[in-house]
């Protein structure tokens, strides 16, 4: 009982980020400390008298901790924020406008669209994440398909997952997310974006979820269901590691897992398929980790200086190499020799070029909930693709129209 107040109270007590000295910058972020500390050590060495007090947040409870700290009026000076959390903070005017103070960074970094709302910038792109296709080439061969021919189109994808499902005993063709509503839009929207569809219109005033492009994409996505393993993402990845799943949509972290747990598995990382040859794009989901400064920060200038340091390519590459989760937003890292040695990782850099982020709309939390709910209804066969997306249209428009 009274769980909310207790949670809030505990979080307030533990999450207060009060700087004890004038020269302390409080920085909250999600990477393991072992990955970020060497970078911060270099910053401190270059800025004598300044100490960065870094704290690692977890993806499970980071949001609650940040909310509690803001509520207490004692947020960190600089904070790493996920792109899906950002809209709510922008909506509540919690972050300071960085448009002018980051103007000279614009050409050095990519991902500004994910951190901008109505032309104003509320976060500095730090790391970018995307998803691509992992294909088990052993299973493709076993299914008597050509593993050398990449999956380029929707038809290629369906043909391969169907063949794997039908010809490889004990294996399923495709990993379709189920039982975790919260990530469904990330898995479906790449097909819709690739087909020219979207969630909101360009003015972000109306839903376009029920567009013919989206309906066609959802119909295709649902056509993969008979050949799919319906489970949570981590279970898909386990099945892929064990060689029992043909194709899974995942991120670069799976490359490292595979190297450790299934070093003999023959697989390839491929771009998300486009609808058809010469039609659409190889779109995928783009998530950004941005650096934001709260209105309540006591050291805004120092935080901005630290953020500028962190997004430099020589400081972001070590974080990627240590974690393997998200890619530096710095444009110039594309020429790093690291990618020549790790071509699977480099494939994600290619994928990022056609990846699309969710709209930075103040009501994104409600919109995302509706999209995920309707997609779930379609995946579970409660609604057809048309019914689900038209219902999403109506519900999102109602949310957009509400004060």
């Amino acid at each position, binding site marked *: *009982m*009274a*769980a*909310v*107040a*207790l*949670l*809030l*109270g505990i979080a307030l007590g533990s999450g207060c980020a009060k700087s004890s000295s004038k020269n302390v910058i409080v920085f909250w972020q999600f990477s393991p400390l072992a990955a970020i500390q060497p970078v911060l050590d270099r910053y401190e060495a270059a800025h004598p008298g300044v100490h960065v007090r870094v704290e690692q947040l977890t993806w499970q409870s980071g*949001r*609650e901790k940040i*909310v*509690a700290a*803001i*509520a207490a*009026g004692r947020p960190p000076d600089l904070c790493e924020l996920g792109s899906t959390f950002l809209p*709510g*903070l922008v909506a*509540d*005017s*919690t972050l300071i406008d960085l448009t002018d103070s980051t103007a000279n960074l614009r050409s050095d970094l990519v991902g500004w669209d994910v951190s901008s709302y109505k032309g104003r910038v509320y976060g500095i792109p730090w790391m970018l994440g995307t998803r691509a296709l992992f294909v088990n080439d052993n299973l493709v061969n076993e299914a008597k398909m050509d593993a050398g021919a990449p999956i380029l189109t929707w038809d290629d994808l369906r043909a391969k997952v169907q063949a794997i499902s039908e010809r490889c005993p004990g294996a399923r063709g495709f990993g379709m997310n*189920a*039982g*975790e*509503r*919260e990530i469904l839009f990330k898995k479906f929207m790449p097909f819709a974006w690739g087909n020219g569809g979207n969630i909101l219109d360009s003015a972000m005033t109306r839903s376009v979820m029920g567009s013919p492009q989206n309906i066609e994409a959802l119909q295709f996505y649902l056509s993969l269901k008979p050949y799919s*393993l*319906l*489970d*949570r993402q981590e*279970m898909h990845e*386990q*099945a892929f590691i*064990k060689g*029992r799943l043909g194709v899974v949509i995942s991120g670069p972290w799976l490359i490292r897992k595979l190297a450790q747990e299934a070093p003999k598995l023959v697989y390839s990382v491929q771009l998300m398929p486009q609808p058809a040859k010469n039609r659409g794009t190889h779109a995928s989901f783009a998530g950004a980790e941005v650096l934001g400064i709260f209105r309540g920060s006591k050291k805004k200038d120092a935080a901005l200086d630290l953020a500028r340091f962190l997004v430099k390519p020589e400081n972001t590459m070590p974080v990627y190499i240590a974690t393997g989760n998200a890619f530096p937003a710095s444009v110039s890292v594309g020429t790093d020799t690291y990618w020549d040695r790790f071509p699977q990782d480099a494939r994600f850099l290619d994928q990022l070029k056609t990846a699309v982020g969710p709209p930075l709309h103040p009501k994104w*939390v*409600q919109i995302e*909930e509706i999209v995920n*709910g309707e997609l*779930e*209804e379609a995946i*579970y066969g*409660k609604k057809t693709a048309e019914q689900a997306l038209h219902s999403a249209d109506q519900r999102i428009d109602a949310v957009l129209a509400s004060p």
Partner: protein
Amino acid sequence: MRRLRGAQGLAPWGLFFAAFGIFPLVYALALSFLAYNPLRPDLVRWVGLDNYIRALQSPSFWHALRTTVIFVVGTLPVTLTLAYTVSGLLASVRRGAGFFRAAIFFPATLSMVVIALVFKSLYAEEGLLNGWLGAMGLSRVHWLQDPALALPSIMLMDIWASVGYYAILILAARKTLPEEQFEAARLEGLTRLQIERRIVLPHVRPVLLFVVLLNTIRSFQIFIEVFVLTRGGPLESTLTLVYHLYERAFYHFEMGYASALAYLLLLVVGAILLVQRRFLGGDPMEARAR
């Protein structure tokens, strides 16, 4: 003097309870009458009973309440019956009693997060349970992906996790029955079943009531299991009241509304406990006094 010493002894606990028990209760009650977004504390405003009215008019609230009640009604009788049966078996064990008691009690020593993570692996499409079913020539079961099975799967896990704790409580009450009473009953020619019904059951009844109340309160608060296993899905089939409350508080930043949900939960649980006590009779505190 003795009274003063007693008060001194209670003071640390009293302070702790005031800080982490009374204060959150009062604070949440105050919040429930406000529109309060923690990101915009400057926009806080008094809304009176609006949060309560909104909850009572919300289909999501009623759906979450219904799911929670199904969970409670589904787990309570099974947990109670199993715990009572297991306590009887433990009482009759002569050799290795310590081992069996420890084994039965073991789940109670584990964090619910750990238990849920283990069951997540067991319930996976490619998990151990489906592996066994496959080995027996049976088709896979979509334990957590099928909307009809997700809640029962969580209930099964919860029963496994809580039976041991309650069985040991009931066993402790059984052990307070003098052996002479059993011998007299046997001399009277009572069968084992009759001994259970006429002697043991009435004796442990206050503890059983205590278990019913405790399990009811705990089951209404189900959160961790849902958070780790299903996040309320699929198709909101496992959306319980506390998980719904959590989503409103920390995803939609509606702390006032979430607090109103918490107080509605308190009212529901309180009413059910009163009804349970009235129909089951007895005072669970007697069990502690024995």
